[in-house]
């Protein structure tokens, strides 16, 4: 995907996005499909977190820049999650449609975000691995009903084939409060991780 240059007349907004979900559901694969339009069948699990950016144009004169935290899903990193979702404008919580426990884990993340993240955070639930339809364990209706009830955007995606990947980010972009922020040249600053953190604990709390 090309990176559009900002012309003087266009609006540019910058938002922080965090990906959460159990390990091996395809968080990194979704981001890589979105940012690089690539898919690696044998991608290794993320260690810690990776930081990526991607710019999309919403319409002729609106440019959205996403600053993305792709977090590792392993249990041992759980206590670090607040550092990534604190002040995030949007979150994509991912589960694997072939693993029903991964939806339960996703629900726990949604709960945590609704309780502890920015109150205006836009949360999307993404059921990944749509290409493995034959192994599906989570019916679309079940996840969709849950998403509706919890007030989430909902997509079923395949990072492998690319189905619905860009759509997630475009849909999120449409929901983001661009008007409020587009007047300033540098626009919104999302998560400021340099600010001191009250609940700062240097070691893991598992």
């Amino acid at each position, binding site marked *: 995907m090309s990176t559009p240059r900002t012309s003087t007349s266009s609006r540019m907004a910058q938002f922080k996005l965090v990906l959460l979900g159990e390990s091996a559901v395809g968080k990194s694969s979704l981001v890589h499909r979105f940012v690089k339009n690539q898919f690696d069948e044998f991608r290794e699990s993320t260690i810690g977190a*990776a930081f990526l950016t991607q710019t999309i144009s919403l319409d002729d004169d609106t440019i959205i820049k996403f600053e993305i935290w792709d977090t590792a899903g392993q249990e*041992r990193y759980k206590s670090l999650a607040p*550092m990534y979702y604190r002040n995030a404008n949007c979150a994509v919580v991912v589960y694997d449609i072939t693993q029903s426990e991964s939806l339960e884990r996703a629900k726990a993340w949604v709960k945590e975000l609704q309780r502890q993240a920015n109150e205006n955070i836009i949360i999307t639930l993404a059921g990944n691995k749509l290409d493995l339809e034959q192994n599906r364990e989570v019916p679309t209706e079940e996840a969709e009903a849950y998403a509706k009830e919890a007030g989430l955007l909902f997509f079923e995606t395949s990072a492998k084939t690319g189905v619905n990947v860009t759509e997630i980010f475009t849909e999120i972009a449409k929901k983001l409060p661009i008007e409020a922020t587009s007047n300033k040249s540098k626009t919104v600053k999302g998560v*400021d991780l340099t600010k001191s953190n009250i609940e*700062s604990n*240097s070691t*893991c709390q598992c």
Partner: protein
Amino acid sequence: MDGLTHRPTQNPDHSVPPLETGLNDIDISYDSGSEHDDNLDEDTSNLEVFLSQEKHFFILSTAGKPIYSLHGDDNMIMSYMGVLLTIISFFQGQSHDTDNSDQLRSFTAGNSLFVASYEDPLILVAISKRGESEQQLRNQIDVLYTQILSTLTKSQISRVFKGRTNFDLRRLLGGTEKFLTALTREICKGSPPILLSALECAKLPRTIREKITTILLSHKSPSLLYGLVVSDSRLVSVIRPRKHSLHPPDLLLLFNMIFHTTAFRDGEEHWVPICLPKFNSTGFLYAHIFQFSKNSVLVLISADKDAFFELRTVKDNILKSLRRDNLIKPIELAVNNGFSFRTIDIPVPHIRHFLYKSKLDVQFIMPNIEPHFFPTTSSRKALMGYYHKLHAMVHAKNGGKLKMVYFTKGSATFFGCDSPTFELYFATGPDTTKAILTLSVRAILAWVSKNKERLFIMGGGVF
């Protein structure tokens, strides 16, 4: 001249590991003990392969839960670990005092040497048919142990096992098996950095290295603890606070994670909690890891988990300066395709390969392994095997200031010596006389001394 660190050059001595709790309370009749025979019978061919391996590493909890094994599947290693644990526990039971000195440290069976290390609540075992010394195997399992610590910290391991001796540590290590596997692979290849517990530096002109270090220092920010440029597992430049050394075993772990797996090699910015056990085994540091060219990585380490964006700016500024001063190309050239330097560059005839460790700098150098001397994987492995043998001989515990050994094997003579300031091992032509060997040693030492500033990082940038 200050060394890179003040770490003693000897490997940590594990002769008296702490015995805390648990070892006497082991449930020997652990889990699925009775089903083992069936499983093994089903898989005889695999078992044969498993037993024929030259080297094994096992990591288990004191309750017998498997954590890591180099070879074999779960069923196979469960029974094997059960046997190991029973043997270890038997001797444990024999000693009634709480003094650890009565623990089983090593034994031989046939041509296999077994070495066990207790790092409560973990037990690590190395088994080798390759003729390495006990101390060498102990050093190898210590490297694996520090890798586990680097993922979890000592305090977290103690915490999860507290009151749950049956805890399955693999749940917490998920995703990092690749680092252990990469380490064991390096160990099995006979990795010189692990044998010598020393770092290798990229060979660079002094002025280039100084420029890079100056750039790192000029962009340092308040939260920055360590800054490193590393190229293909070789240190290019390092900056550190005056009061904190960097320990080679910690850096070996870091280099292993970065260069022997693909986890951080995707051109993205990574923010990784990591415990550097020799720095502090109980807490995490946070590393900003960014691969900026084909072989080269910038690592910025902070004690502050919220310092990502601060270090990100530091990274941008450093890279801008490196590009402006055309320094990225020389770094890449220094390690291009694993290139180090060649034996023919050194005015010592007949030398085929050597390892030189500067004890003060805790760094070593070696030339490329020339294919016309060592054409096959097995000949390279054999060379490393002879280095291990020489290393074991000069480190055998019987004192002496300068120890030299040599022997002729097949078409080559192997030489090793350990002095208070350096270790040197080399392979040269067959039936080389003592006089020629002495000349070769002198010539290598003279060459190293002349090129010291290109070959070693003398202290690094200190702030």
